[in-house]
């Protein structure tokens, strides 16, 4: 069948099914007659609803939202349409947004609801299912193309392949069955770091896959709220004043084929040298042995003691770890531990065991114990997270200011970096310089996996005339994905400005630091670098599973501390419109701006994903596209950030000295077709500078 013939056939079938829908709903007896007529003039057809699916993406990244485009083909010899299109993920993985991109609609006026966002199964549902005329058109083999985009949130601790089951439930227009087809697309692990912060469970529960064992009088490991290095939880066990042991055992973890590292943070308070803990590893379900005996090594936070014999606790009263190297004594603050995994672990399954041993003596109280947090397994390859991406400082003359450039290694191995300075309007650092007003605490360094260097940026306006001074910080790293970064830096000097301004406002009311003169705005384009600079009590809104449709007034979001309302600008053409299942905030009119007004505790840090979403276009049948879009973010003090956003992963964050009262999101430029693109926001983080 050629294309035009297929189109005619589809149109005829669609018209027929539409007619069946209308007639069967309104004039049932006429519908019966209509069907009878069809049966007389047409040979029997088989309504074998089936489905094929493909996606250009083949992998997933844990710990983030994965944006997948599914190319579906709805196959039905009888042109049965689909009422429901459902995406199902494994437990713990959630479908957070669905977007319809393109396809033929059997009944374009059908009421189609989006259900299940934020759960493991969701998609489009027809409340009249089986409606006899589904919205999603089907056609004989090879089927009717239907293109859909689905956001899948994969937890940082998800392990294994990621199967997504796509099911289409037909409208039931034409017997015989089946009226349902499904297909599974499996995405493989893209190698993103595996992380547990113990914060997604309610204390005292351990995360899925984690377990605890005890011997003697040992206390089981639990999660403890309010004790975490990452709020709120950490894994914890108490040190009893009697002989025993307590073990915290991880799930089996696939170690990268190229080798891997284990990172975690810990603090402990045990009876020095008599009670203490060790780290053990078991490969491929084998027996546990000490991480060092197995061939591993400590890059940071190595064992600091040896469990010795206590004369008062001998024989069966002795510490079961007696004689072994261990962590023992007191470490009051969380500190990182980096472990290079044994070469034998590469490409194999590994389990880790944090094992606390105690002898018959000691003191059992709530202050004693062992706390573990921020556990991650990464490859041995460094992954840089550098921020801020832009720094703007304004100050009085003769002022000295120290800002910080964070250089973190989210991966493993050693991240090697170097920083050069170019002055004035330089576009690169091919001609380095050393301006008198700008000094770096260091110009190079090495960052172990899971840790961060904070490089001091010393700004000294002494002797500078009023005016604007600029420089470029050029950061080079051995991270192949981020070999070079350029960080613009501006210093605005105004004599007497500190006397003119209100010092209370200058330090932002709740700034625990120093009420410094002037202002500083740090702009980030790396979410991890931004998060490293803000306090733990921040609010993050993912806008999944919200009510949808028009909103005609300011709408509130936030947590108990940080609250904000979202609406459009004064004089806007309309209010908000939340597209069902879109998982983002947007205005009703593409040319309106989103205005976020902070209404709770003072906010000095905000960040999120900002981009341009073309929900629909007057010049194209494609929907929900994300064309490159100029996005302008403006703070209430007039500071602004303009950038070209290419999609939902584009991030911008601001950390300021003074409270930020509002943020405006605009996409002022039309695309080449003359269409204006909606400026949207997702995953907004609201908090305060650390």
């Amino acid at each position, binding site marked *: 069948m050629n294309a035009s013939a297929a189109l005619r056939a589809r149109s005829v079938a669609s018209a027929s099914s539409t007619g069946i829908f209308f007639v069967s709903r309104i004039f049932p007896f006429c519908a019966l007659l209509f069907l009878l007529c069809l049966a007389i003039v047409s040979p029997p057809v088989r309504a074998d609803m089936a489905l094929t699916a493909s996606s250009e993406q083949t992998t997933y990244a844990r710990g983030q939202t994965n944006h997948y485009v599914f190319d579906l083909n709805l196959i039905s010899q009888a042109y049965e349409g689909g009422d429901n299109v459902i995406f199902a993920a494994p437990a713990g993985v959630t479908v957070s947004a669905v977007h319809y991109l393109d396809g033929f609609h059997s009944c374009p006026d059908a009421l189609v609801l989006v259900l299940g966002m934020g759960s493991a199964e969701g998609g489009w549902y027809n409340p009249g299912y089986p409606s006899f005329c589904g919205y999603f058109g089907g056609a004989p083999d090879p089927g009717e193309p239907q293109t859909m985009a689905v956001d899948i949130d994969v937890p940082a601790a998800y392990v294994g392949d990621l199967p997504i089951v796509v099911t289409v439930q037909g409208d039931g227009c034409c017997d015989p069955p089946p009226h349902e087809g499904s297909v599974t697309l499996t995405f493989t692990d893209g190698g993103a770091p595996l992380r547990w912060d113990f914060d997604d469970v309610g204390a005292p529960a351990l995360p899925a896959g984690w377990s605890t064992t005890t011997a003697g009088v040992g206390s089981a490991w639990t999660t403890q709220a309010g004790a975490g290095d990452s709020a709120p939880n950490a894994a914890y066990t108490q040190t009893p004043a009697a002989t025993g042991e307590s073990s915290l055992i991880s799930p089996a973890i696939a170690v990268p084929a190229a080798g891997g590292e284990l990172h975690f943070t810990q603090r402990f308070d045990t009876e020095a040298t008599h009670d203490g803990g060790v780290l053990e590893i078991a490969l491929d379900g084998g027996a546990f042995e000490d991480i060092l005996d197995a061939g591993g090594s400590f890059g940071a936070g190595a064992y600091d003691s040896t469990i010795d014999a206590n004369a008062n606790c001998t024989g069966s009263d002795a510490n079961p770890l007696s004689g072994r190297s261990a962590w023992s004594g007191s470490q009051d603050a969380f500190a990182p531990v980096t472990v290079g995994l044994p070469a034998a672990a590469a490409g194999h399954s590994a389990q880790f065991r944090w094992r606390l041993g105690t002898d018959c003596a000691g003191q059992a109280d709530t202050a004693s114990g062992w706390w573990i947090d921020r556990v991650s397994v990464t490859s041995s390859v460094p992954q840089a997270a550098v921020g801020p991406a832009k720094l703007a400082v304004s100050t009085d003359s003769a002022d000295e200011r120290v800002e910080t450039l964070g250089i973190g290694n989210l991966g493993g191995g050693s991240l090697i970096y170097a920083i050069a300075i170019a002055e004035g309007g330089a576009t690169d650092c091919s001609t380095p310089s050393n301006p008198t007003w700008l000094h770096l605490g260091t110009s190079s360094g090495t960052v172990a996996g899971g840790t961060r260097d904070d490089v001091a940026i010393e700004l000294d306006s002494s002797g500078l005339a009023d005016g604007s001074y600029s420089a470029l910080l050029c950061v080079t790293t051995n991270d192949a994905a981020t070999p070079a970064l350029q960080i613009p830096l501006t210093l605005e000097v105004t004599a007497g400005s500190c006397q003119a301004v209100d010092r209370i406002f200058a330090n932002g009311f709740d700034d625990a630091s120093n009420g410094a003169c002037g202002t500083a705005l740090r702009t980030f384009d790396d979410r991890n670098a931004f998060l490293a600079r803000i306090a733990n009590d921040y609010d993050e809104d993912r806008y999944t599973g919200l009510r949808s449709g028009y909103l005609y007034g300011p709408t509130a979001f936030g947590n108990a501390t940080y609250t904000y309302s979202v609406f459009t600008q004064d004089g806007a053409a*309309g209010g908000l419109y939340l597209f069902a299942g879109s998982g983002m905030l947007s205005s009703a009119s593409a040319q309106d701006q989103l205005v976020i007004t902070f209404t709770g505790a003072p906010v000095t840090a905000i960040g999120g994903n900002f981009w341009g979403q073309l929900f629909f276009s007057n010049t194209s049948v494609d929907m929900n596209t994300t064309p490159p879009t100029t996005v302008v973010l403006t703070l209430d003090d007039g500071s602004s950030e303009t950038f070209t956003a290419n999609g939902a992963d584009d991030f911008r964050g601001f950390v300021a000295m003074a409270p930020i009262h509002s943020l405006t999101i605009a996409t002022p430029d039309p695309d080449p077709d003359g269409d204006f693109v909606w400026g949207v926001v997702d995953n907004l983080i609201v908090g305060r500078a650390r």
Partner: protein
Amino acid sequence: MRALQGGCIPASQSLPRVAACGPDPPPSFLYEDNMNRLRAIRFASTLLVTSLLAAAAAHASAPTSRSGNAASAPRSPARPLTIASPLLCADAVFANGLDNASRGVCGDGAVTVYTDRAEFLAALAPGHIENTFTDVAQGTSLPLQYADGDFNYTVFTEFFGASGGLYNGPGYISTDRVTDQIWVSTTVDDAPIGAIGGNVWPSDFQLQPTPGTIVLTVILQDGSTGATETIDSGGPDDFRGFISATTPIAFLQIEAPDLDAPPAGTTPDRWPTLDNLIIGATP
């Protein structure tokens, strides 16, 4: 991108409430809040109901009721609302005096309105049922169909012209779209419902109770408006019950109109909310 053929290309794209043109609009579910369209559908639906109900009723299939569950999609068809006969009362609004809190008399369909739950329960025939919606989870849902005792009924948005489905709170009912109503409906095949009542209040975007107005409308199976009741709601304790003297109740509409003049900087948006639904027979 594939270009469309002809048509106007506006200076800006907006959802239809703002402005939109184009020969080949996006699928309707992106346009479902077009208020002009919605109003047109509602008007047309009224005509459709009154003119086609008899035929539809004759074809109403045996109910396949199921317990509501917000977390799963029903696998059985939603049953159409059917009413026994075409509209009998020429103008039910005039018949009940616009906003009569006592009874809107239309033909023989006198409806008594109760504001006290205990009085309402005392006036019911034995065998009433109550739905506290404890099995309803927060979030969007399809129609909730219930069979309890002698009564079969469906809780959803308006049958014609709804722009979305339900968006429930934990243990109570609300709508996804601010413009939609909650409808509690039954069919002529089911045991006649002579009494219906429940707690109703306006909620905000976050499902929290908020000051506002609730309008309840009782439609009888003869097509007439049995009663229209307006509440300046104080919250989830607000109760209204309706008992029809003779003509069975076809459905109850619950609407939360937007505020006409909200305080500066606040939203006019209100969503209808329902809990502790009581259904019974005329004594």
